[in-house]
């Protein structure tokens, strides 16, 4: 069965999560009122304790559940990637600390690869930072560059951590929804969802510190095109704003689409941090390695946060990742290169999910990229990850009828999903 729906604790329900600790009961000795204040959480995390992934992970741990929820592959990572890590664990020096801002062989591999994609030189020491997952890059970026009282624009639906991270920095998120054009019998595509340029501009003001962009987009699968990115770039330049571009799904783009980096647009390199992920690139989410790329005058502040938080990332994993990168960098034009083969493999799965969902009368939004597909389920009362979890409270109702399915799953998983969905459809009729 799919994960049952429960009322969600998603971050924008502020009032629910105010917690203070009633200490006299817990501590067991006579306490004055001031005692409970000392043991209270810092204000920066007030209201941020709910997290839907924790809840859904617990529910999905039941082995009878077919998990198309959280975005991790249940397909095997490429063999050479696993082999590299295995070899490396036997090398003594690689079990000890490495360079804090990124293991030298890894940042060299990253700069080599991204220099090609950016068509510019990238200093491996000063313009790249390796973090604990892309999550860690988002955290470092927000902590380094976003201050109390700043505003940060978030495009709805958004990957859920953006909002609490912005709030944890004492800043205010400002929301703008993607809106769908009417579709009229055509197949519904993620490209039908767009931002209204005037509405977007209305969200910028002198307090706007940054906008967070996510392309390819989670959960919609939208791949922003040149014109759309140009609108955003123009506004960033006009209002002198930073752009935080979450591009973890950069390789997962399907036929007819191209991933574009906003940092390559004129005037954008100096104001953009671009975030990538080993987990999504090589299907190894458990390695928890990500990176931030940008100009030194921004990256150096992310490095300051790094040296005052985790200091350095795991060495053997970074070395293994570097080796894996070199293998694929050498064959980037080859269909065997994982950067090429994975999207091909996933496009087949995407099409299968689309077909399956359509066959039971659901309306999927065909994604141009990413791991996920959204379907309008207002005809059936079923749940996977509700898309309302990716929204702030005001826009929640616009997205309540959608659920998100992850299709980077092995065929037997998708077979099991098919059986369940078809069974529902039979039940319903």
């Amino acid at each position, binding site marked *: 069965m799919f994960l049952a729906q429960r009322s969600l604790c998603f971050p924008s329900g502020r009032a629910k999560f105010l917690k203070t600790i009633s200490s006299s009961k*817990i*501590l*067991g000795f006579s306490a004055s009122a*001031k*005692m409970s204040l*000392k*043991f209270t*959480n*810092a204000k920066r*995390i007030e209201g*941020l*304790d709910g*997290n839907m*992934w*924790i809840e859904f992970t617990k529910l999905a741990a039941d082995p009878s559940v077919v998990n198309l929820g959280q975005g991790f*592959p*249940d397909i*095997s990572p490429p063999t050479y990637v*696993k082999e590299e*890590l*295995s070899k490396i*664990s*036997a090398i003594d*020096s*690689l*079990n*000890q*600390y490495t*360079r*804090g801002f990124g293991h030298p062989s890894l940042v060299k591999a990253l700069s080599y690869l991204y220099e090609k994609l950016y068509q510019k030189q990238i200093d491996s020491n000063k313009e790249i930072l390796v973090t*604990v*997952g892309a999550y*860690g890059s988002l*955290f470092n970026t927000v*902590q*380094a*560059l976003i*201050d*109390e009282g700043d505003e940060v624009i978030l495009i709805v639906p958004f990957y859920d*951590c953006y909002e609490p*991270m912005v709030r944890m*920095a004492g800043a205010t998120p400002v929301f703008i929804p993607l809106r769908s054009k009417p579709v009229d019998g055509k197949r519904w595509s993620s490209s039908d969802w767009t931002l209204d340029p005037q509405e977007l501009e209305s969200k910028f003001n002198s307090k706007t*510190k940054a906008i967070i962009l996510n392309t390819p987009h989670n959960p919609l699968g939208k791949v922003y095109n040149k014109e759309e990115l140009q609108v955003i770039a123009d506004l960033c330049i006009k209002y*002198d704003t930073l752009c935080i571009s979450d591009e973890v799904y950069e390789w997962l783009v399907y036929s007819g689409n191209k991933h574009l980096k906003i940092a390559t647009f004129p005037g954008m390199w*100096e104001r953009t941090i671009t975030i990538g992920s080993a987990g999504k690139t090589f299907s*190894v*989410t*458990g*390695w*928890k390695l990500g990176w931030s790329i940008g100009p030194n005058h921004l990256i150096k*502040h992310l490095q*300051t*946060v790094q*040296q*005052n938080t985790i200091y*350095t990332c*795991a*060495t*053997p*994993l970074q070395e293994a990742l570097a080796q894996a990168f070199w293998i694929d960098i050498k064959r980037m034009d080859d269909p065997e290169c994982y950067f090429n083969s994975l999207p091909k493999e996933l496009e087949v799965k995407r099409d299968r999910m689309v077909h399956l969902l359509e066959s039971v009368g659901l309306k999927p939004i065909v994604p141009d990229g990413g791991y996920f597909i959204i379907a309008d389920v207002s005809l059936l009362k079923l749940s996977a990850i509700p898309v309302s979890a990716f929204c702030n409270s005001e826009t929640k109702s616009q997205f309540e009828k959608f659920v998100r399915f992850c299709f980077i799953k092995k065929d037997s998983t998708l077979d099991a999903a098919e059986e369940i969905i078809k069974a529902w459809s039979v039940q319903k009729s």
Partner: protein
Amino acid sequence: MAKQLQARRLDGIDHNPWVEFVKLASEHDVVNLGQGFPDFPPPDFAVEAFQHAVSGDFMLNQYTKAFVIIIEPFFDCYEPMTVMAGGRPVFVPLKPGPIQNGELGSSSNWQLDSMELASKFTSRTKALVLNTPNNPLGKVFSREELELVASLCQQHDVVCITDEVYQWMVYDGHPHISIASLPGMWERTLTIGSAGKTFSATGWKVGWVLGPDHIMKHLRTVHQNSIFHCPTQSQAAVAESFEREQLLFGQPSSYFVQFPQAMQRRRDRMVRSLQSVGLKPVVPQGSYFLITDISDFKRKMPDLPGAVDEPYDRRFVKWMIKNKGLVAIPVSIFCSVPHQKHFDHYIRFCFVKDEATLQAMDEKLRKWKAEL
């Protein structure tokens, strides 16, 4: 950009001494006794555990969570972390007692003045950071000393953050005592541990914190809004390593017994070697490190090159790296700025290094002695 780029929380904390010293060490042909990592491998069972973790179930490749009193000298990150959170650090020093001429100092001789410690607590003190065994001194706090800290924490309702990463590295039969085990302390203590120091695998970057749920839940909130997960395989390897140690707990073949015994011998060897060139080591009761008094050198060579106001110990270390090929860490980096001058005649050596490294150190010291 016209606006201030970086958040104000980073003001004053952008410099980091490790970045400087690690770089220096890599640029010169040196024997590195500076940064605290073993340059020998982790025990076989730990390496095997990691091997299992990375070649086993492929699903392990996927995801699997006011005022602060700081006792000086302190592991340097405590201060900037406090500052970054908008807290205000308040420092109280450990001070060495007098030693007889000809005798070696011991880390047990370095103590807190109980009146001075009590005076640092106010109604606005939120936490106290304790580190035992202590880096850089190697002091292992005794039960009496911990009881003093505990009673002040309870009296003033303060949270105790105790960094016990070196908990297994205790010598000469000194017991490591966790302050959380003292009466009244579990409910107000966060105890931090490290796989890197426990299993000589600093590159795995797995650590943990233990404490009562009413405080831990707030750490979990930060965790889920920062890195969210730690790497799966590293955690699996640490778990398997602990399982092995649990079965052997207290027995002679336990890594937690053998490793500190071996390191005690290296400590003793380093103490003897350093004395041969007129350095005065302070014998540590625990940890990876010892500090050494360089007062004689300060008297004989007071004017080593360095920046204006640069503490003597930093200049000495840089001179030693360039001229003697040995890397140590100046102890003033483990002190608050106003107190650095009280510690500028000490440098820290790490003795948790391969035999070959200590032999290389002896070579460098022999040459040095010959030049004296």
